[in-house]
């Protein structure tokens, strides 16, 4: 019989190795999936993992990696704070949408004025929008003990309706010949998050890097971060240490909401350009995978965000070149999280073959 035996100490080696093992397992089983679908698995894996970085058209795909990776990392960093404390914000997608709406709304309110202060105001607007949206589950949880998982998730759908309403109503481009969607912020210099469009650099990339650094300092060098980790490890001990659980919930949900809102703003002011019905593409949900793939560690999240962006871009190439269904790519990404969580158990447990007979 196979038994799992709890390790006296979490294994550091496995803690570092599990993401790699999970990626390998995903390649193997994803490859099997592609083979069953009648595609050449080796080629599919090569297209997904190799071509975007070193293939013939890598010059085009590499900037795309930054564009895709930045929002994932930014959102995942925020989520990781709550996840570490056992506070589950599943609704980053909604906060991302609201941040984009409020941030873009601030910018569009100034149109066509050109001024240096517009973009900073939009950044603040985006962060506040995401923060406020996350405060709904936070306050409900603190005040009434509701489940933040459900409330934050449900609010995603509310946010999506709001997004549709905005694209068709309040924020609709008056010069858009009746098409849904707002003015394109890429045509509005003061409200534009691009630093260098050719390199894929926009302020969201910068914000993601800053978030990684701040989160690292917070978690490792600051009392608040220590309390976040403590709450996740042992809630009762955290209370004994003096943590106010309510305040921690407000902080964690608020911070993750604000970062998701920022990601939405940078996205709408750059790569997407406009508020439209199909503005959101699931970054808020994928960021959950990124947060766990990165082991809730800031540097890990940075790497995981890059990896996830790679599978996004590689997946798109595989779709267009090999005709792989989009669902297969999503399954592939889901496998990654599945294997990560499955192998994660090896950090705290070791597998032993038990030959002793059970009495």
């Amino acid at each position, binding site marked *: 019989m196979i038994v799992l035996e709890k390790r006296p*100490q979490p294994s550091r080696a496995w803690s570092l190795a599990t993401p790699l093992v999970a990626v390998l397992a995903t390649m193997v089983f994803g490859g099997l999936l592609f083979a069953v679908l009648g595609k050449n698995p080796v080629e599919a894996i090569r297209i997904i993992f190799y071509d975007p970085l070193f293939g013939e058209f890598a010059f085009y795909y590499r900037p795309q990696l930054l564009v895709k990776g930045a929002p994932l990392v930014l959102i995942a960093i925020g989520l990781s704070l709550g996840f570490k404390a056992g506070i589950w914000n599943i609704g980053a997608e909604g906060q991302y949408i609201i941040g984009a709406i409020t941030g873009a709304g601030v910018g569009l309110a100034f149109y066509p004025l050109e001024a240096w202060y517009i973009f900073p105001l939009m950044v603040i607007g985006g962060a506040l929008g995401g923060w406020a949206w996350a405060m709904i589950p936070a306050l409900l949880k603190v005040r009434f003990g509701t489940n933040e998982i459900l409330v934050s998730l449900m609010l995603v759908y509310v946010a999506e309706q709001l997004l549709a309403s905005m694209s068709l109503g309040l924020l609709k481009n008056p010069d858009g010949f009746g098409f849904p969607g707002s003015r394109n912020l890429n045509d509005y210099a003061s409200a534009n998050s691009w630093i260098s469009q050719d390199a894929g650099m926009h302020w969201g990339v910068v914000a993601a890097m800053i978030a990684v650094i701040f989160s690292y300092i917070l978690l490792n*060098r600051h*009392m608040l971060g*220590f309390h976040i980790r403590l709450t996740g*490890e*042992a809630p009762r001990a955290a209370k*004994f*240490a*003096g943590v106010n659980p309510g305040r921690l919930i407000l902080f964690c949900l608020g911070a993750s909401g604000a970062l998701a809102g920022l990601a939405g703003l940078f996205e709408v002011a750059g790569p997407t350009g406009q508020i439209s019905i199909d503005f959101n593409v699931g970054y808020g949900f994928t960021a959950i995978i990124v947060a766990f793939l990165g082991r809730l560690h800031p540097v890990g999240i940075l790497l995981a965000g890059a990896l996830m962006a790679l599978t996004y871009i590689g997946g798109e190439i595989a779709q267009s070149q090999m005709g792989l269904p989009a669902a297969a790519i999503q399954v592939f990404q889901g496998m990654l999280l599945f294997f990560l969580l499955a192998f994660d158990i090896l950090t705290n447990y070791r597998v032993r073959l038990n030959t002793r007979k059970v009495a």
Partner: protein
Amino acid sequence: MTTPLLSLQGLTKAYPGVIANNNVSFDIGEGEVHALLGENGAGKSTLVKMIYGLVKPDSGQMLLRGQPFAPAEPRAARTDGVAMVFQHFSLFDALNVAENIALGMETPPPMRDLAAKIREVSEAYGLPLDPYRTVGDLSAGERQRVEIIRCLLQDPKLLIMDEPTSVLTPQEVEILFQTLQKLRAEGTSILYISHKLEEIRTLCDHATVLRLGENVGECTPADTTASEMAELMVGSSLKVPERAGKELGDVALDISGLSVPSPSAFGTALKNVHLSVRKGEVLGIGGVAGNGQDELLAVLSGETLTEADAVKLDGQPVGRLGPTQRRKLGLLSAPEERLGHAAAPDMSLTENAMLTGSVREGLETGGFLKWGEAEAFAEKIIKEFDVRTPGPDNAARSLSGGNLQKFVVGREVLQRPGVLVINQPTWGVDASAAASIRQAILDLAAGGAAVVCISQDLDELMEISDRFAALNEGRLSTPRDASGLTVEEIGLMMGGAHGMEVAHV
């Protein structure tokens, strides 16, 4: 002698790091009320779980009426006529009595028949119970009746009762005892687990005493005094040291008229607690587990907030202050549960030193943590309290219980508290470590700190306390000088009828 109903032979069960039962043997006769006596952690629960099929013994065997008996699961035990009433009930509040009982049956009869049966059994045994009442509206005593009747419907040969009176009022206890005597008269054997000595003397025919997982003696409770049984349980005669009158300082900690509702369904509400401790004094608080110890500690540590004036530190109201602010003022505490409450299991000792030490040891400036100094503090605790560990980088859960306890106590003691509140300071600690922890507490008091020590170990309390009080159902008896207290008096304060301790003052 006739074949006993159940014979336990050399039962042994070990969990990682602790032997819960070591070679325990005894017999339960037909129609006998057999007491299983022992302190918390003596291994009573593990033993009955083996009989009820919840836990498999590592070695040893059981014989039921001479036949080998090794239930793989509770269902098998029930089929063989063993029923158990647990300390905590497993009933659905929203369902009525009959529905709850039907849920526990393999093939429940139609509801109307069942209700009639319940009424019949409940009247036969003097446990009046309406089968159609909703369980949520029942008192603890009535809920227990549901559990008992659930067992009686199976017509058991052996009924195991795990501390049945811990949730009952004195009147309900009276009724329960009559029922149990009736059952005995009908030939049902009862294994009665308790540490309330007087109860056992009234009710039980025979008693087996467990200590640290071993059978340390058997006796006939009716012919044995409570203090003799207490000695068997504790392992040495209670020695009450003579104390020279010490010079005590001002009142350091003062609680007056403190009442706190129970934080959870299985918690205990604190009722009108008064206590004051002076500088240099150790107040020992005894009592059976679950009578408000955890709740009292939470009130003092700042985890439970109260009226500002209910808790005063050096005359200053602190009832509204959280743990961090209380630490700043010098009120420190060490909870009973080491893993998960006093310490975070998966965090290193350095991080656990930071957990309570950050304020008084200056391990942070402006919220930024000084890990170097935290590590130095952890090393200091390890060195001064002889914690056996490779180093401060190790996770708290890698330490043995006793070593972690030394760390947790040392962490608070080394922060030079003005008032230290400590729950079960030597719980599960080996004798030499326990002695050094007690010495540290005495040294602390000698240095002018006030100490509140909550413990279930009476020996320990008598050794270190200047004054002694007991918690009973959330009420604290009036503290009395520890010197000159007799075991009987302590017993009355701990578990006796309410108000009886007043007669002795």
